[in-house]
């Protein structure tokens, strides 16, 4: 009896010393995998954020471009100051989100005379004529059959122009300042698998130059 007891105890001790069982190892691997997958998922989010960096850069530049064109028009007096307003307020800038068409004869984007963009080679841009450019394809050479067209068809541009009130404390406080307008330009874009992103720039424009 005694012997048996001891041997049983010893046997139990040995069992514990056997290390992990296959089941235990598999469970551990599954747990590990879940952890690693979570890390990889966050990595994928980081990659996605970097992928949208290209669009971010373009959007930022497009906002500035639209703003520049309005200041240019004011400076060159090609449009009267009263025209620096949305169409709904008697101006020339189309209300609401618009595709990124190219400037027409007036050199201003976001106006009624905008035209469909063309590539350098003179072909029409896809996506209804939104700005595009032909880039070299996999061979890295522009002008070959595998060229790819990068279209800004997933972008939209909103130019909102509002009146500005005289500041508090000034003689005409609270009244509309006829010599100043507030411009808000928003460029938004969508990209598959990412939430829509937008860039906004605000600027004031005065009738004086």
């Amino acid at each position, binding site marked *: 009896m005694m012997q048996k007891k001891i041997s049983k105890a010893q046997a139990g001790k040995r069992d514990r010393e056997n290390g992990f069982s296959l089941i235990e*190892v598999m469970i551990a691997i599954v747990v590990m995998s879940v952890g690693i997958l979570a890390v990889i998922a966050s990595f994928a989010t980081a990659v996605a954020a970097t992928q949208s960096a290209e669009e971010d*850069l373009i959007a930022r530049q497009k906002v500035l471009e639209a703003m520049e064109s309005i200041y*240019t028009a004011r400076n060159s007096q*090609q449009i009267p100051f009263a025209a620096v307003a949305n169409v709904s307020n008697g101006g020339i800038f189309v209300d609401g989100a618009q595709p990124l068409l190219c400037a027409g004869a*007036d050199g201003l984007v976001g106006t009624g005379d905008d035209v469909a963009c063309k590539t350098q080679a003179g072909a029409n841009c896809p996506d209804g004529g939104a700005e595009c450019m032909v880039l070299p394809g996999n061979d890295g050479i*522009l002008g070959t059959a595998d060229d790819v067209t*990068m279209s800004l068809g997933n972008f939209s541009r909103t130019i909102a122009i509002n009146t500005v009130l005289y500041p508090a404390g000034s003689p005409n406080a609270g009244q509309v300042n006829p010599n100043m307008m507030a411009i808000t330009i928003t460029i938004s874009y969508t990209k598959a698998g990412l939430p829509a992103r937008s860039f906004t720039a605000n600027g004031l424009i005065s009738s004086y130059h």
Partner: protein
Amino acid sequence: MRMNKSQHGFSLLELLVASSIGLTVILVMTSLFKTGMDATMKVTQRAETQQNLRAAVQLMTKDISLAGGGIPSGGLQLSSAGVSKFGCNQAGTCYVTGGTYPNSATGSPNYMYAIEPGFGTGVQNAAVITAAPGQTNSSITSVYCDYNFPLSNFTFAIPAAGTSATVGVINAAITPNNILAPGGLQVGDLILFTVSTPGNGKSASGTSLVQNAAVVAEVTGIPSNTALTFATGDALNFNFATGTNNLAAVASAAAGAGAQTSACRLQVVTYFLQVPVAGGTVQTPRLMRQVNGLNAVPVADNIINLQFTYDVIDSTTGTVVANQQNPIGAGESPSLIQKVNLWVMGTSLTTDGNRAQNMYLATAVSTRDMSFCNSYSSSTTACQ
């Protein structure tokens, strides 16, 4: 017996199952690692391309938006004795093909406009860009007064011969009071001298200045911190002893009663592409920035296409004509440029196998100083 059995370890079957599961897991991890590495490669390529494009666009935007600052809106009249050049260094290397200021006819004065469009002259020596052969590349030259170096802190005495100037300091307390201060003048820099006399009779007080003479001179030597030399035969062909608009003319105008001479350092900034060749190997093209008569410096790598269009006022119709590639022709002049639209295409130097990442950036810049109209100094309401 039991004890012995428990020491047997895994059976072959157990080992096979375990190793195959382990192998599967390792394979999955490896493929994930490969995906991760590919993504990292792509991200590196994109970041590199974007960084180059950003640098290119931001620098060009700054220089173009300053165009015309401190120079007459119609451009500066240069000497009739020769054809002045831009985009050349002191060693006689000219980076831009046909880099001379537009002139109407031989022997007549040529004009330094605030922007010199260089349609089709965008690559040094017309080298072929392997990644984009057959594409039009253009250069652009922007001219403005550099107010960062306060030449107004100095007086300039120009002798009648007009080949040198003695520099005096107006206020020694203001630094930099030395033309050789860091960032100061160098051989090859251009100085715009303007002589004005008070009074144009327009206003009752008669104190507004009338410009009598203006000349652009190239510094050919700086013997000391109080002297500048403007010898003829300079690299950019600005210094002449004959013809109109030379230093001697400024010297004689400056000798007039009440005349005031002012000076500013001009920045004539040219952007173009260069395809460098090192040790017989053609390298990837890069964007270069060249100032006055100095050497060009690279500002952005792997720029494979550079294009500009201009929104310009047609002087015959008085309306804006948008997107002109080369605004020199009937009714159009570079002095009437209102907006510059620019396109830059970049590629990544790092290639994943044979795949480079390409992207482009386009923007527009208003040439504020060229369309600026000071309605306060004008007696008419032309600006309104």
